């Protein structure tokens, strides 16, 4: 399977405190890729690097088989972008904004844009500066979709929207993806939202990619284990130990692990320990544990 987005050793520095370090993203073509991370982790910066808005310090970026920034004009013609903050000119009306935007995209579908506008209940004569947050959110998704893009890059597209609008926006995106077989790269810190729609997930923290794996693996692979008689040194474990919390003798220790498989019970037998409970963690808990593990000081 080819990748819609690929970065290798991507580096970027902003000021003295923030940097993106050796970022290696691989977003499979046709995937709905959730780009998770806390505020300030580098999600928006990464997106701006992918779109050629910022200059990388090192590494390579390929988007839709084009090299960024060299082929950026051709790349942008095939990318629908919804930024973190509204970027359209606020002094224009909805109809004017659609006309302006459409003039730059050869694949612009004006008829569908009108259909979406009606479906979203947007008044074409309304000035953008007077739109509510929800209406603006819908308009941003509308203009990105009406370009008929091969890749949608959505930066916190539902942040601050009410649940009804959020559902409308995501439904429109998913409907387009299912018919056009487009790739979606969606950044958010709303973990539950991504859990429902994504089939791949990448987790950023402090400018680094902490994990990148299929959503199913992420959801199934992160478990909380109750372990009795665990030795201090666990040797070469066949899983990644994200967190280890002491417990009382009856309940045993609480371990959060990634990459868990039922066959790994044998490992505990070998080290003289026993697992007496395996609990699924939802994506949010898994996300939190993953971040906690990535931030823990290494010995």
């Amino acid at each position: 399977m080819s990748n819609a987005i690929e970065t290798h050793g991507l580096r970027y520095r902003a000021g003295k405190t923030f940097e993106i370090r050796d970022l290696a993203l691989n977003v499979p073509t046709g995937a709905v890729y959730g780009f998770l991370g806390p505020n300030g982790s580098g999600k928006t910066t990464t997106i701006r690097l992918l779109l050629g808005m910022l200059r990388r310090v090192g590494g390579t970026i390929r988007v839709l088989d084009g090299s960024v920034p060299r082929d950026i004009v051709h790349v942008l013609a095939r990318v629908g972008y919804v930024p973190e903050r509204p970027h359209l000119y606020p002094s224009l009306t909805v109809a004017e904004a659609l006309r302006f935007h459409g003039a730059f995209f050869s694949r612009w579908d004006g008829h569908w844009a009108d259909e979406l506008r009606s479906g979203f209940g947007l008044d074409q004569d309304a000035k953008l500066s007077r739109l509510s947050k929800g209406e603006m959110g819908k308009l941003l998704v509308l203009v990105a979709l009406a370009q008929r893009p091969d890749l949608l890059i959505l930066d916190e597209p539902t942040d601050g929207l009410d649940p009804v609008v959020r559902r409308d926006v995501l439904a429109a995106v998913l409907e387009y993806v299912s018919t056009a077989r487009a790739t979606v790269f969606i950044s958010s810190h709303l973990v539950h939202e991504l859990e429902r729609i994504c089939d791949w997930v990448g987790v950023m923290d402090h400018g680094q990619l902490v994990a990148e794996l299929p959503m199913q693996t992420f959801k199934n692979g992160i478990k909380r284990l109750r372990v009795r008689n665990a030795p201090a040194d666990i040797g070469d474990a066949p899983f990644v130990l994200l967190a280890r919390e002491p417990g009382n003798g009856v309940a045993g220790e609480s371990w959060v692990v990634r990459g868990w498989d039922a066959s790994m019970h044998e490992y505990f037998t070998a080290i003289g320990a026993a697992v007496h409970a395996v609990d699924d963690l939802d994506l949010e808990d898994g996300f939190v544990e993953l971040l906690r593990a990535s931030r823990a000081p290494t010995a």
Partner: protein
Amino acid sequence: MFRQMLYTQLKWSLIALAALVVAGFAIPVLSVQRAGIVQPATWDAAVLLTAIRGWGVAYPILAGAVGLVAALTAWSHDHRGNHVYALSLPVARWKYAVLRFAAGGVLILPVVVALWVGGLAAGSASTIPNGLHAYPTALALRFGLATFVAYAAFFAIASGTSRTAAWVLGVIGALAVVQIVLSAAGVHAAFLPDALERLYTWPGPFELFTGQWMLINV
């Protein structure tokens, strides 16, 4: 693409542009009318020329104002959004700048035309003393060139970030300070007046703004 660029810039500058069009038409007309008020019955050539010359300063000021408005409206909305929108459009940065520049260039034309029409109207409605002639077309052409030069200069400054503008102003300020210090120390190095003179004398770009701006002349 260009039509949409033009439309947005027209929308953003419409009120200011309308006022400048009115001013462009009014200045030549008023200059002749004022001269007529001085000598309503029979125009004395010298009095007329003095009155017309008095209005001459209004043309370069208007040219600068038109250039400033056209340049600022070309970039202000992109600056406000940190250029995110412009950078997300599938058009090369240089081409985007050229489109914005060309659209602003088109928008200065109505003022030039208004000034030309105003000059024609003022010239044809006046009884010009023997030996004098009205030059509405030459005046409008000169005004158009001056406006374009002012627009290009302001456009170049406005296209940069506020940091760039601060650098430009900072360098000019530093040069001025150095010039003052050198003068105070008795060192003969008039590089700032020299630089200004180069800008305002031929072939300097601002030479157009200097000299007399006369609708009616010998």
